[in-house]
């Protein structure tokens, strides 16, 4: 479904991604790990179309379509979801209105008519349960006054609502206590199917105890320098990243 070839990207003229290659198929879960500053968040931003980054080389194919020429909202309609590391607050816009606008834009893209208010609220209620999101939060402004854990749960709630084909979760585990981590991971697992795929970006093994990826990739200095199975994550947890640096001759 997703094919990344030789992807280069920079921000303000500084090259961050220096040739990424990655293939993701439906039903798969991939984890991208790596030290700070390796380019993990940049990769997720570039895939989602954040205009702050400039792609200088390479291609990204998503179900046969060129992802890089699409606007961020078109990527969303095509089924790319980004769970933000730092979900932004939007004062004055209630979660209900926000989600309703999002859902109806997706429906419009598919040629479907907007959901009625009652159908929409039913859907909200159903999906809220996936991450045990409080009804009160749904009535508040987007992320405003949410705790760190609530913000992350809210991300997974939105993922549940939009039913993406590819979810990229950018350090969804950061800032979570152990209960929130469990709720968030269980939410992700519930949403997993043979038709969708997940890319998890994380520093830590602990998230991978819950969300079990088949593929682990180590991102270092803008390149994927090592790929492997679940055992690679355990090795990293044990030894840190230094041995990889050594392997690379640094």
């Amino acid at each position, binding site marked *: 479904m997703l094919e990344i070839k030789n992807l280069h990207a920079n*921000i*303000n003229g500084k090259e961050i991604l220096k040739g990424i290659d990655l293939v993701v198929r439906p039903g798969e879960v991939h984890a991208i790990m790596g030290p700070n500053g390796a380019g993990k968040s940049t990769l997720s931003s570039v895939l*989602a*179309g*954040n*205009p*702050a980054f400039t792609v200088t080389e390479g291609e990204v194919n998503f179900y046969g379509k060129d992802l890089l020429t699409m*606007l*961020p*909202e078109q*990527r*969303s*309609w095509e089924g790319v*979801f*980004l769970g*933000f590391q730092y*979900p*932004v607050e*939007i*004062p*004055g*816009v*209630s979660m209900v*209105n*926000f*989600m309703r*606008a*999002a859902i109806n*834009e*997706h429906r419009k*893209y598919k040629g479907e008519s907007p959901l009625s208010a009652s159908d929409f609220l039913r859907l909200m209620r159903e999906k809220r349960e996936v991450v045990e999101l409080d009804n009160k939060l749904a009535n508040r*402004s*987007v992320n405003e006054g949410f705790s760190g854990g609530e913000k992350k749960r809210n991300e997974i709630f*939105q993922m549940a609502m*939009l039913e993406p084909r590819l979810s990229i979760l950018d350090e969804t585990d950061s800032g979570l206590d152990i209960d929130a981590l469990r709720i968030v991971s269980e939410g992700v697992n519930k949403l997993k199917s043979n038709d969708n795929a997940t890319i998890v970006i994380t520093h830590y093994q602990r998230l991978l105890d819950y969300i079990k990826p088949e593929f682990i990739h180590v991102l270092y200095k803008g390149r994927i320098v090592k790929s492997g199975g679940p055992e690679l994550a355990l090795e990293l947890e044990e030894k840190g990243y230094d041995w990889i640096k050594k392997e690379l001759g640094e």
Partner: protein
Amino acid sequence: MQDNSNNILDEVTGNDYKYGFVTDIDTEIIPVGLNEDVIKLISAKKEEPEWMLEFRLKAFEYWKTMKMPTWAHLTIPEIDYQAISYYAAPKKKEGPKSMEEVDPELVKTFNKLGIPLEEQMMLSGIAVDAVMDSVSVKTTFKEKLAELGIIFCSFSEAVKDYPDLIRKYLGSVVSYRDNFYAALNSAVFSDGSFVYIPKGVRCPMELSTYFRINAANTGQFERTLIVADDDSYVSYLEGCTAPMRDENQLHAAIVEIYVHDRAEVKYSTVQNWYPGDKNGIGGIYNFVTKRALCKGDFSKVSWTQVETGSAITWKYPSCILAGDNSIGEFYSVAVTNNHQQADTGTKMIHIGKNTKSTIVSKGISAGYSQNSYRGLVKVSPKAENARNYTQCDSLLLSSHCGAHTFPLMDIGNNSAIVEHEATTSKISESQIFYCNQRGIPTEEAVGLIVNGYAKEVVNKLPMEFAVEAQKLLSISLEGSVG
């Protein structure tokens, strides 16, 4: 990154005016220019009594001694008052008696504006007094209101049918000596609405006037006079649009509200005059004097305005809180985009004891526009226990626009409690991207955020108006995000 975000916002706010059609109606316009003869001609065309003409001429004499005010934070090009025609009326001398008699072109216009008279009559129960150019076209629901003793008619009719009321209240809140534009309006006003709610009557429906400037080179000078007698209540709606024209058009209106003991008036405006094009060519000059006199004890006035149109706006809906325990409220959203300028706000004059006022002003600036809040809270020495709360927020959508606040407090009594809060914020690129990522395109995202920001004020509008205002807020900022 910064540049990028500005570009996006600029794109989203550089939009086109959606109400810019011209209605092809046979219109009677008098030649341009302003002198005593013109005023006599207007008065004669309207078959006015002598006292009305005298009022106009006095105002005109006074106006001639005055100069355009220059204290506002506005750049106003020189206006040639001799190049304007002061009277334009759709030609059709006999007033329509039923919907069938209304000019189909006119009905089409109103339909485009989203106010099908017929439908509104049947469905929403709103009585509409539609004013196109200078003559009131049709007043609905008059009979039903008449049963309750409520008078709702065009100003010209009121002059003929209720001369005593008009003579008593005309100019009692806004004197023709009040300011330059008030004097001009008093001299040349062409029509408008008159409302009288008798003692103890609660007006069962929202009264609504829809103003539209259609003819080229004309000014619109309407007057609204609302009198709420003891223990009465009325909610009044005013909406305005105008077609696109390259030249600037002048709109100088007066709204006077006189409120007796324990009476309440809620006055809501959605103003969407043509704002000019992207480069600031054309557009309406909206110089309006709106004032309410809370004469009676426990009287209350609430102004709610959503201002998205006009090239230049100069308006300060105010409350004179003369009665003891009277209350004044002002809720405003003012949007400026492209090269629009707005200098708007309110005056709350506390004179009676235990008077209260609330001001909530939300300015939204985009493009190269300038948006100023100007407010006066005055507590006179005798106004014991006056209370005021002011909240004044600005939202910026571009790096080229300006938001300014000029709050003035003049407190003459030590028992007063006056609060002022102010914030300035900007729609950030990360907020827009967050919305985009969820599938909400930038324009819709801006609309969503702006409507969220303005919610507190929009929610004060009556239901039908609130929906229109929300759409308008989104449309006005299309092509302007940054």
